[in-house]
């Protein structure tokens, strides 16, 4: 040991402040290299910005503020948003995308009716600055339902042209409404507008200069008649749930004041469900683990020309996987939060070869030490474990529409773990077995893409699991990672179809 310190000390004192002559190194070469490198970086930035800004297709993932609340969004932004990494740009990109992407938790806008200006009397109107009109829309909503009348909106499948009594000109019946004040009989009226052919209407509306945008909250009704293909109202509008209506006044080429009405019915998802999911997991392992090492430098045998030898047992795992199946009950709370309980069965294991390695130094007779390393495979381990757990979890649902949503969940589980560890000795061909059981707590997170067909739904998803002391519990030691990554598929039964 003292000899080692002397060697170290000699080199440290001699070379720690070693400053050889470096006069041949001029600053000019360095300055040129720095300038070249800076130029390349700048050029790369410019090219990247230009490419993505004009021609590229940009994939953008990140955190964003979503409509009426703060949440996590995964946004796909084709073509028109340059990639940047600061929050302001992310928020700006989100705002810009609002009109063009179907945002999380919202149904698509239904451009349903053309109303005359007079029909907007009595509604709440909020004007926006012209500079924000291009990609902003103002929305408001009520949470307290006040049902005063029922309203049905009818749009004919084909243009219905009749000759009006007042003008004598052909008129297009753009809308037919019937109002039914509660407790009274229905009254019907027809509204008329200057005839515009459908194709022309569509085109002209896109070219109309919008003066402002207005938002009108509209309460949904408690019950509606069964829908037909001519009724735009949803048949599954939930009780007391706000339906959003956006009114955009516009003036056509003839100077008539029209209003463009967009309605966004609320998304309806059942309140609770039973789920059965199964999946495969992958547990990263170290490529090898030194299980036992004798690195003793005192074992020199000079008489035999051995200066040092050590030995170690190395485990080399080869296979690792997990299978899980989970049965759970899940209840959705307000604001798309959820709470669930479940039971999980987990099965996994791996094999590991056992190598015995012996190393030593031998003097070749002229003072040169030669290193030798002999490795022999002496056996193999087979680890197998099973666990049963009870889980409690919560999460948030990102609802796209009434068929699709991404459901996230995270929680923890209490596991009872059973493990067997078999060792096959190559020399004796004997198999020894150790059985153990232990208690393990695990945490997990998952995201599932779910598709619903009436009461049944299907999902695929990814999950990550972390186990507190699994490795120790199953005697896997440190090369068995306590984190696993999984893919799963599930089938879901939704209990009700009425309440969000």
């Amino acid at each position, binding site marked *: 040991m003292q000899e080692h310190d002397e060697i170290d000390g000699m080199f440290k004192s001699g070379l720690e402040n070693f*400053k*050889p002559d470096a006069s041949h190194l001029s600053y000019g070469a360095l300055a040129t290299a720095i300038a070249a490198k800076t130029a390349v970086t700048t050029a790369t930035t410019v090219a990247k910005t230009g490419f993505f800004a004009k021609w590229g297709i940009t994939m953008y993932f990140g955190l964003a503020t979503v409509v009426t609340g703060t949440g996590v969004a995964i946004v796909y932004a084709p073509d028109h948003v340059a990639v940047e990494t600061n929050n302001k740009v992310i928020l700006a990109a989100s705002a810009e995308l609002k009109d063009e992407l179907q945002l999380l938790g919202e149904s698509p806008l239904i451009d349903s009716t053309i109303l005359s200006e007079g029909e907007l009397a009595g509604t709440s109107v909020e004007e926006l600055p012209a500079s924000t009109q291009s990609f902003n829309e103002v929305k408001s909503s009520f949470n307290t339902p006040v049902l005063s009348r029922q309203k049905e909106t009818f749009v004919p499948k084909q243009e219905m042209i009749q000759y009006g009594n007042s003008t004598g000109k052909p008129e297009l019946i753009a809308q037919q409404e019937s109002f039914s004040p509660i407790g009274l009989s229905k009254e019907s009226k027809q509204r008329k507008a200057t005839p515009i052919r459908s194709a022309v209407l569509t085109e002209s509306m896109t070219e109309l200069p919008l003066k402002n945008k207005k938002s009108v909250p509209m309460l949904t009704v408690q019950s509606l008649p069964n829908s037909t293909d001519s009724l735009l109202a949803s048949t599954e509008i939930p009780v007391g749930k706000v339906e959003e209506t956006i009114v955009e006044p516009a003036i056509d080429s003839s100077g008539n004041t029209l209003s463009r009405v967009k309605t966004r019915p609320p998304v309806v998802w059942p309140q609770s469900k039973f789920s059965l999911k199964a999946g495969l997991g992958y547990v990263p392992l170290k490529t090898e683990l030194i299980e036992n090492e004798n690195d003793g430098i005192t074992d020199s045998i000079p008489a035999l020309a051995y200066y*040092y030898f050590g030995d170690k047992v190395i485990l080399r795992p080869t296979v690792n996987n997990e299978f899980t199946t989970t049965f759970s009950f899940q209840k959705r709370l307000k604001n798309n939060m959820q709470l669930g309980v479940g039971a999980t069965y987990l099965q996994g294991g791996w094999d590991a070869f056992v190598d015995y390695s012996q190393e030593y*130094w031998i003097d070749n007779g002229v003072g040169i030490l030669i290193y030798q390393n002999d490795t022999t495979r002496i056996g193999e381990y087979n680890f197998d474990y099973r666990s049963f757990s009870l889980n409690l979890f919560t999460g948030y649902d990102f609802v796209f529409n009434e068929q699709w949503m991404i459901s996230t969940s995270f929680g923890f589980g209490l596991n009872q773990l059973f493990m067997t560890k078999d060792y096959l000795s190559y020399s004796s061909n004997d198999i020894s077995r150790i059985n153990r059981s232990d208690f393990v707590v695990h945490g997990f997170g998952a995201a599932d893409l779910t598709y619903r067909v009436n009461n049944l739904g299907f999902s695929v998803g990814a999950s990550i699991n972390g186990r507190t002391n699994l490795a120790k519990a199953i005697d896997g030691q440190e090369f068995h990672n306590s984190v696993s990554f999984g893919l799963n598929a599930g089938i879901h039964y939704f209990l009700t179809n009425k309440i969000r």
Partner: protein
Amino acid sequence: MFTNKHSREKAIEQKRPENFERLYNTHKSMVYGIALRYLRCKDDANDVVQETFISAYTNYEQYDESKPIGPWIKRIAINAALMYIRKNYRFKLIENERELDSAHAPVDDEKEEGTFTQQDLIAILHELPNGYRTVFNLYAIDGLTHQEIADYMEITESTSRSQLLKARKMIKGILEQKMSVRYARA
């Protein structure tokens, strides 16, 4: 770490050509010395010096001005040397010294018995395989722990200890060989 606008302005000020040239001229010998310890070839050492100062220039905002700049540049230089070895050297932890027998060239110009010049020590380091030399440099001269070396080189601590042990054994053999040559000459 720069935490305010004033500090960033100082960093920009320091990166001006005339100031950075002064910094370069002050520390280039130290960086060149480090590079020579880790690398066998002077041309490689020259490259590492350049890489070191380019890295210092581009990352100057990360320098904590409350501390002396020498150790910061030294750290960059060691990193640059290790990176250079990874990229350009056949980085292998030698397990059989038979391959190295032919590399044991005698070092002359010893001044007196029992003493070695800096050039002698550098020459001895250059005789070591890359793995031995790197670990020995990091541990014995630059004062890193085996844990830090393991992180640096992406090896296990056990391997680091083993390589250091082997490096010392080899150095000892070289030193004894040189001493015997001197004794024979005397």
